């Protein structure tokens, strides 16, 4: 009796070979676009090399790293980036979560309102930066200054005053990405079982009690995931600064680490140093993400126990 091998789909090729044939194009692409550049840039970070010059890379050990870490201006950029990340992510969290709480009920035109609120997130960051540059123009022709003019002695230099420029970047980024936070929070809020609130109502629990002991614990894992994504994104934010404040201006008031990295790599073509800077940034983001993930796992564990 001949036994058919149902898993043998094609004559001449084993199951394993067929699987590899399907995976191989993606693997090759991944290696070419991700793995090779990662390893090549690590190699270049220990060399003096300029992409604009035909001279071969010259090994200089850790000099790129030591120069960067000893440069007070680089720490300034990290400070600027941290300032932006903390302000922007916090604002997006409170605004996004607040909007989600307001939307987590049935009302007329809920779908339309939700779609409108999601629109900023769908726009191109370059377009957003461009039209916000006009809105935040430092003379009274700027829309924001125009509406604030009855209350101000002189127009606010949103993109020209170094004390205010980062706030302008935070405003634009918050406007654009609060909907993301809102979306994730809304998904979390929709998943909270209704019977918990009903049980709390039976015990005459206050609104704050229900929020603190039902809503927050059950939504916090998703909120933390959203915070993780936004923190990672905010850390590497480049496009809005590039367009809104013209590459980190005024001076270096809004020059983030990503902007400086861009200048190192594509304005100065200091490829070796730029690779070193990229790795320093990678290590910091990985470290921060690990802290987040550990905390997230702890929160998820606490929620499951509850």
């Amino acid at each position, binding site marked *: 009796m001949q036994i058919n091998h149902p898993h043998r789909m094609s004559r001449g090729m084993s199951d394993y070979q067929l699987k590899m044939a399907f995976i191989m194009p993606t693997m090759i692409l991944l290696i070419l676009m991700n793995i090779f550049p990662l390893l090549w840039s690590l190699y270049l970070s220990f060399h003096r090399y300029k992409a604009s010059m035909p001279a071969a890379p010259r090994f200089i050990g850790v000099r790129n790293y030591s120069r960067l870490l000893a440069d007070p201006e680089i720490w300034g950029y990290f400070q600027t980036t941290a300032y932006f990340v903390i302000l922007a992510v916090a604002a997006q969290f409170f605004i996004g979560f607040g909007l989600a709480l307001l939307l987590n009920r049935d009302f007329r035109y809920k779908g339309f309102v939700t779609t409108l609120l999601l629109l900023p997130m769908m726009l191109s960051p370059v377009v957003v930066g461009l039209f916000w540059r006009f809105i935040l123009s430092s003379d009274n022709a700027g829309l924001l200054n125009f509406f604030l003019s009855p209350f101000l002695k002189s127009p606010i230099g949103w993109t020209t005053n170094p004390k205010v420029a980062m706030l302008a970047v935070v405003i634009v980024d918050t406007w654009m990405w609060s909907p993301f936070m809102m979306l994730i929070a809304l998904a979390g809020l929709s998943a909270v079982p209704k019977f918990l609130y009903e049980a709390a109502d039976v015990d005459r629990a206050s609104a704050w009690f229900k929020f603190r002991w039902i809503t927050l614990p059950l939504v916090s894992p998703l909120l933390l995931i959203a915070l993780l994504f936004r923190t990672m994104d905010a850390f590497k934010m480049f496009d809005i600064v590039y367009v809104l404040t013209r590459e980190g201006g*005024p001076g270096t008031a809004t*020059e983030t680490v990503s902007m400086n990295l861009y200048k190192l790599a594509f304005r100065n073509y200091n490829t070796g140093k730029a690779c070193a800077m990229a790795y320093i940034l990678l290590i910091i983001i990985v470290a921060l993400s690990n802290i987040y993930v550990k905390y997230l796992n702890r929160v998820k564990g606490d929620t499951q126990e509850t």
Partner: protein
Amino acid sequence: MWSFGGTYGDAENHKVAGYINTEDAVKALEFYTDLLQFSPPDAPNYYWAETLSAYNSGKVAMAMNYFAFFPGVVDPKSNAISHDKSGFFVAPAGPKGHYISIGGQGMSVSSYSKNKDLAKQYMKWFMQKPVQEKWAALGGFTPHKEVLQSDTFKTATPFNEAFAASFPYLRDFWAVPEYAELLEVCQTNWSEAISKIKSAKEALDAIARKHEEIFEDAGYYDE
């Protein structure tokens, strides 16, 4: 800066400290920063295009820009307000000299080129008088002395005469392969001085330090 007595550095030994951060250079940057009071509120963020736009829209009565942008001033399509009322003049002298930074794209032969002779032949051909005359007629600016001082060139556009008159005072930035990196350092620090993040002295000291780092990395100080 040059007109105030300052300089970018020593072209022979590429030393910068003690040249770009002298008292004269500090005075020059302070004077430049002071000019901001006569500019629109968003002027600190202006680049060439915004400067042109501010002038063409009537926001400012006078503006300094590269000659390459002046066709936009005299074109009625881009300057409906003052295209036929604009005049052009040579940048004024400073307290210690008369120098003008006329930007442009220079021609150079890469030391890595395998066709150096051909490149030089091209440059020789391009610099011939008939070729430069044709180049000027097409709207280009010429460094050819005869063509520059000819009536044909001076009358070709409303601003060519000012260009020809500016040329004897020409000075330019470092003409080295590290040009972009050196310029970026200057732009960042001048911008910080204009925005009052740093004083003029601090900005120029920072430029001196960074420029010497760049020259050191590039091997200019190796014996």
